[in-house]
């Protein structure tokens, strides 16, 4: 018999932990989540905190979160072992739309990678042709390459040859070379901003996952409200179209931290974007 209050976090046991790269682990849980690519969970470390993580992949009976170690929460999460119990709220937020698409390009950078990895998995299951550009600062931080290749995804990154110094050049080349009918990306905001400008310009369908500081994930704390539309990205996002992104004047400019203060990408780019290529 199970006794449960539906408004409480759902409690799951860690089934398995996979080392992906230095400071990068995948946590696998046994639970039929039925999330959609681009959606996220608020992960609860009992007695510690609650933080947003994208669904990295999912089967009928399991799901996984891929986590980059950054601060207190992720450090404590890294100390967890298989068998430990955690909680989550979700799946939350909007998701990528790839209906009727044939050939799509995905771009994942740093801790934004898992969000698009799940999309790659789902798109391949629907038979789409999927190219995937992995962005990272150093070759050791390239993750999910094998996972994606196994699913029949064509993977590209700038460490495959020495041709590109910046991932952006690789992206531009791919877009020029291939007839993609959809672009999907999650990663450093300034990269996303360039992508939005480019796809609007070229009139290519594009969705990005736009991450903001998310304290509650439920539309109540207002930390993730974006100017000037005043909507909460924890619910109206994280996945938005390039058009909607373009209406958000703070996009590429600033976001709000836990106190609600604006953090400018220019001023503090390192801090704001440290997890991203």
């Amino acid at each position, binding site marked *: 018999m199970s006794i449960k*209050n539906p408004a*409480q976090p759902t409690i799951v046991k860690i089934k398995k932990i996979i080392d992906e790269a230095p400071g990068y682990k995948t946590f696998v849980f046994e639970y039929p989540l039925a999330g959609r690519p681009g959606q996220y969970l608020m992960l*609860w470390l009992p007695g510690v905190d609650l933080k947003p993580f994208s669904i990295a992949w999912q089967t009928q009976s399991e799901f996984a979160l891929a986590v980059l170690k950054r601060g207190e929460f992720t450090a404590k999460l890294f100390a967890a072992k298989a068998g430990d119990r955690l909680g989550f709220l979700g799946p939350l937020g909007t998701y990528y739309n790839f209906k009727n698409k044939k050939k799509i390009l995905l771009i994942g950078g740093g801790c934004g990678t898992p969000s698009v990895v799940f999309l790659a998995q789902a798109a391949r299951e629907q038979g789409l042709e999927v190219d995937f550009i992995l962005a990272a600062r150093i070759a050791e931080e390239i993750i999910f390459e094998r996972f994606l290749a196994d699913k029949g995804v064509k993977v590209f990154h700038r460490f495959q040859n020495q041709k590109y110094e910046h991932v952006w050049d690789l992206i531009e080349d791919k877009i020029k070379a291939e007839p993609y009918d959809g672009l999907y990306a999650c990663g450093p905001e300034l990269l996303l901003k360039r992508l939005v400008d480019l796809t609007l310009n070229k009139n290519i369908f594009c969705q990005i996952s736009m991450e903001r500081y998310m304290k509650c994930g439920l539309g*109540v704390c207002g930390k993730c409200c974006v100017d000037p539309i*005043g909507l909460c990205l924890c619910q109206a996002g994280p996945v938005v179209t390039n058009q909607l992104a373009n209406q958000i004047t703070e996009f590429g400019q600033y976001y709000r931290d836990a106190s609600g203060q604006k953090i400018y990408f220019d001023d503090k780019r390192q801090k704001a974007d440290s997890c991203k290529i």
Partner: protein
Amino acid sequence: MTADLNVTINGLNLKNPTILASGILGVTKASLKNVVNNGAGAVTTKSISALPRQGHPAPIIITYEAGMLNAVGYSNPGAQKAKEEFQNAQTVGAPVIASVIGQSIEDFQAVVEQIKDCGFAAMEIPLSCPHTPGFGSLGGQHTPQMAAAITAAVKKLTGLPIWIKISPTHQNNLKVAQAAEAAGADAIVAGNSMGPGMIIDIETAKPILGFKMGGVSGAALRPIAVRCVYDLYQTVKIPIIGCGGVASGRDLIEMMMAGAQAVALGTAVFIGGASVFNKITREAAGWLEENNYKKITEVIGLAH
């Protein structure tokens, strides 16, 4: 015939008696505008402290079958940033009330000094937060003495109406309201969340909220807030703003019959989204018409 929903409090005209309560969606001016576009008669900012605050660890809220618990811990960017954020608050489309918090009388004064020229319609001072150390109930502010001192200190600095927000459950709340009134407060908001309460996840044997405990709001609170307003109506002469668990037109009318001139909504906005303002005012207007009331102000205090 459409019932007239206008209410006037301290000379401020509200197109209807619904107000966005402090702490829900009130972090940015853009989101306040969004709430006004959805029908709120007035809106309150997230509480503003002198310095930036990160707030409590998450979860900061949890719902349960009778309402919700929150322990946000007053996260806010501080008075200086708030001044930038809410500049020209009068352009939001409805009166904007600034919620001002502090750990000392000087704190309250510092915040008021910073933001008094932003275009706010009134200032609300919560003395009653049940879950933030140093503030409200946990800061020893919910006493007649402190209520009088804080009210007088901020009245000195601004001509704006000062609203004092009390606890609906503390046994001394009528005395706190009376002391605030005597010190010049212009309205009483009744009230804050109650408790605090705690919900434990039995699978992990841990309290769920990051701060372990948090204020209880929503339906659970409504009868207690109604009773508090009812008692206040027989105790103070200044206007009363009801707050606690109101989620329908019926609830709005009930709170006004107890004695409220206007009614703030928190949990209902969280549960139902900003469009709940339109829903509630539509329900109330329909009921008033069916029952041959011409103005919503006719029902104020009718249960006495």
